[in-house]
């Protein structure tokens, strides 16, 4: 591998979270194409390795291959995170597609009070207040965070299924605020 690829490999190995393209580029500002170097690393790890370089949460991270999950977990070297409750997933789904979105709209779509669930998601760092809405009381509006992409293994929000790909296609009453 090129020297740049080796440097990036070291950084990705040392980090315990996905590193973004900008973060990786800042390591060696003058040295060539970071993307090409990442491709180089990825191909290197494609075979003969128990870990692979994965594009995730708008960055890159070394992750173990899926086939070893059970063995590693049985030995308790690492444990899967607790699964999210259906209520948490419902709330996340609404926020992911409607962001920025206020608590009232989430309540309305779910048909139940979602305050406690949203507080927990904020605590877990999966959603955050991104802005305040217009109108009465200028309500807090929520959006998803990089850890949200991380726990779902998504590269970015565009990895979510498009609404018209679902079996229940629904036309939204208001224009779609597509996330950037």
């Amino acid at each position: 591998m090129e020297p740049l690829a080796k440097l990036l490999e070291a950084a990705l190995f040392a980090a315990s979270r996905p590193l973004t393209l900008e973060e990786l580029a800042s390591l060696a500002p003058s040295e060539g194409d970071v993307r090409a170097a990442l491709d180089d690393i990825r191909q290197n790890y494609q075979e003969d390795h128990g870990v692979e370089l994965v594009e995730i949460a708008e960055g890159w991270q070394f992750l173990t291959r899926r086939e070893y999950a059970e063995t590693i977990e049985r030995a308790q070297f690492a444990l899967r995170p607790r699964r999210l409750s259906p209520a948490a997933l419902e709330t996340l789904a609404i926020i992911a597609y409607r962001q920025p979105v206020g608590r009232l709209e989430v309540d309305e779509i779910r048909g139940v009070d979602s305050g406690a669930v949203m507080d927990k998601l904020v605590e877990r760092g999966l959603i955050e207040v991104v802005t305040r809405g217009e109108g009465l009381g200028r309500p807090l509006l929520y959006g998803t965070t990089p850890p949200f992409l991380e726990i779902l293994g998504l590269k970015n929000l565009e990895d979510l299924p498009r609404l018209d790909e679902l079996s229940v296609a629904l036309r939204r009453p208001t224009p779609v605020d597509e996330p950037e």
Partner: protein
Amino acid sequence: MQTGPGFVVELEKFSGPLDLLLHLIKEDEVDITDLPIAKIADQFLSVINDLGLNQAADYLEMAARLLRIKAQMLLPRRLGDDEWEDPRAELVRRLLEYQQIRELVDWLGHAADVRAERFGRGYEAPPPDAPPAPLQIDLNDLLAAAERVIALIPEPMLHRVVPRPLDVEGATARIHALLAEHETLGWKEAIGPQATLVDVLSTFIALLELAKRSVLTLSQPEPFGPMVITRGTPREAA
């Protein structure tokens, strides 16, 4: 209407009234866009009753909504020439929207499960609930700590409370005596020389009381000027 044998359901199974409605619709295999509202409403009421969900406000609100729609179905409103308002439209829209969310929940849940099978570096096991380590401390440390705590205790504010009853009776008697000798008095003469706060207050209350009883008249010739005490009522004095 009785619920069929298909409705063996548990409370925790539903994340809300919309979820329960979708469940009923699926059980009945009816068209969501052409909801048999009377039937669904009856089933909904029966289920929330059986499950003890009738305490939950969210379910009650939905029950009320269903009954209202059921009533409106009997008397639909005309929108245009041959257009009639469908009272179910808003509910159907919400149900479809919610159904879509449920579909996304399945997708997100699956994505999270797949992601959970890969481990990143830097895994930290949750710390075990170890008992706190025994305290290692010598006597001087302990005393110093105790002193620091004691220093933080605020000095209690103590007041000695002395009963000082007002002597209104005495003041009344003194004013009577003074008025027996003088037609008018100044305020200063009334309170007497070297008056204490208690004397001033006692005299003032006595003067007010005597004025009320028309024994004397209080006047103040100019603003903030000295008060003048005159024997008798104003009419007599005039």
